């Protein structure tokens, strides 16, 4: 668990500086005489319960899991250290490799779809329209609905209503449920995931668009910029930081995709839509505990790398503004 801490402290340097600056201001007013005022013991009481619980429920399991990834533990009974055997096996396991392929492909398509739609909706919702508040309220609803529940609703639509529509209109490919089609089932998962996560991205884009000062648009108007030029050359560059936030936060979330898949396809047909999270969880029922922990550890390293990328990019954005 030293791995996650290093990137945070390294990249959160700006936070430290900011906080120390804030603290410095106060010192002038209060504790000028002594360098470090003594800590009121009550503060330990405030902090320790959180620290202890966090260590027991997050750090300890994480360390234990990483340790087991170097053993042949099957979830119970005896075990032996086996070095990197699990890791080597993971890299040549077609089931795991295909789950990575599916999950990353799914995350990539979803992140693009969500951001394009959310951005356009945000532009529309901040333009000169009426009923702004109710419209915005409607578009945010999907965010508050449980993923698996809405997945079940969509499952009905995909496997009953769309085929019925296909038969009625004579459109051949619609007549069969796309959930039963190995090559199309992922599309259903993308649609439901996008449906659910567009609101979050939308709200962030709306905040971004509202932060653009009106003068910028006046200047563009004076220069005779068309609506398209204004969108591409004025709006988009000014919300670039928000795009970065949305893309990376979204991508990280989509890599954990689970609930919606369970509701729609349960990984099927076959193993066509099995995500990384689903393969990891098979370690509990399938006696592959140590092996799947190696998989989980690799997944964790990827998540950390993406987070570092996020901090790098968003810090750049903070420097801009």
């Amino acid at each position, binding site marked *: 668990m030293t791995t996650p801490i290093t*990137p*945070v*402290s390294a990249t959160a340097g700006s936070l*430290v500086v900011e*906080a120390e600056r804030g*603290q410095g201001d106060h010192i002038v007013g209060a504790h000028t005489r002594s360098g470090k005022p003594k800590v009121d013991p*009550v*503060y330990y009481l*405030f*902090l320790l*319960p*959180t620290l202890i*619980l*966090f260590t027991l*429920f*997050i750090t*300890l399991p*994480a360390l234990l*899991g990483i340790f087991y990834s170097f053993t042949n533990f099957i979830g119970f009974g005896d075990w032996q250290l086996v070095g990197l055997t699990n890791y080597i096996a993971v890299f040549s396991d077609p089931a795991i490799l295909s789950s990575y392929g599916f999950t990353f492909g799914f995350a990539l398509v979803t992140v693009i779809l969500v951001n394009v739609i959310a951005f356009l*909706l945000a532009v*529309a919702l*901040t*333009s*000169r*329209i009426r*009923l702004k*508040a109710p419209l*915005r309220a409607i*578009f*945010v609803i999907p965010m*508050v609905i*449980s*993923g*698996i*529940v809405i997945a*079940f*609703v969509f499952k*009905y639509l995909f496997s*009953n*209503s769309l085929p019925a529509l296909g038969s009625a209109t004579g459109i051949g490919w619609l007549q069969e449920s796309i959930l039963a089609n190995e090559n199309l089932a992922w599309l259903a998962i993308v649609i439901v995931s996008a*449906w659910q996560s567009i609101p979050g991205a939308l709200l*962030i884009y709306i*905040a971004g668009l*509202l932060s653009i*000062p*009106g003068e910028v648009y*006046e200047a563009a*108007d004076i220069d005779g910029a068309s609506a398209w030029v204004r969108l591409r050359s004025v709006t988009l560059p000014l919300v670039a930081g928000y795009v970065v936030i*949305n893309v990376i*936060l979204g991508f990280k979330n989509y890599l954990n995709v*689970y609930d919606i898949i*369970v509701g729609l396809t349960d990984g099927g047909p076959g193993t066509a839509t099995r995500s*990384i*999270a689903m393969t990891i*969880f098979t370690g*509990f029922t399938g006696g592959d505990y140590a092996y*799947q922990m190696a998989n*989980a550890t690799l*997944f964790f390293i990827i*998540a950390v790398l993406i987070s570092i990328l996020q901090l790098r990019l968003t810090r750049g954005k903070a420097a801009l503004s």
Partner: protein
Amino acid sequence: MTQESTRPLAPAVAASEDTRTSPARRRRGKVGQETTNWPVMIILFLCSLTVLLPLYVTISMSMKTSAQAVDGNALSLPAPIDFSGFSQAWDLTNFPVAFTISVLVTIGTVVGTVLLAALASYAIVRNWEHRLFRYSFFYLLAAMFLPFPVVALPQIQLTGLVGLANPVGVTILHIMFQLSFSILLFTAFLRSIPLELEESARIDGATTWQTFWQLIFPLLAPMSATVAIFAFLASWNDFMMPSLIIADSSQQTIPVVQKIFQTQFSSNYNVSFASYLMAMAPAIIVYLFTQRWVMEGVTQGAVKG
């Protein structure tokens, strides 16, 4: 509502927008007359159907008779309206039990997250110059980098060992996974509270304990609302964690119950949709009453996080 949101001094939801000068308003100010962009409005109405249709289907299906529900026509209105799906779903899924467990887990998560995160954040911010507190901050933040699937297996194993393979264990884990983000929000907010305010309380003889509860915690209220909403949504809607941690299926939360009874609903679609509707409704109702905080919360969360 319509005119309100376009008027400069509109309250509530539109308020945040009006304090910052929206580009449209500036240009309008020049012209003095505002025009509504009707093509955009029509497109937005059509897009909103993608949100409303699944909800409409859920509601209408839940009120159909079993016979009408199997005809495959999802868009038809229920005729006759029949509420027996609800009573069947209520009995079949043992809804009162699942609902109570979900409510308790969610309340526990919300209260636990707000209290632990607020207390820890206050201690961290006020003792920043001490290493223990400063390092604790980064330590607690590290969980933001840790997806649940990574630690799921050892957590299942350990909660099982210590007798927490139940809703209590899920509540604790929900709190743990909300901590990082909540502490980030609280510390950012606490740093913006002037220390002078606190000092005057201290001069009057208030202890740290009293200062926190009587002065700081009330001041944190807006951020607590944001933290609470995130905790509520994450906990109420979660399927992954309870499905893996809670060993006894009769103690499962509402989202997991939908999965457990999926096969028993079979083709009684009115029953299954009534059950889905009962699962969704509480979060939607809470959202309708807290819209403004939800929207502001997400925005704040993104900017601070």
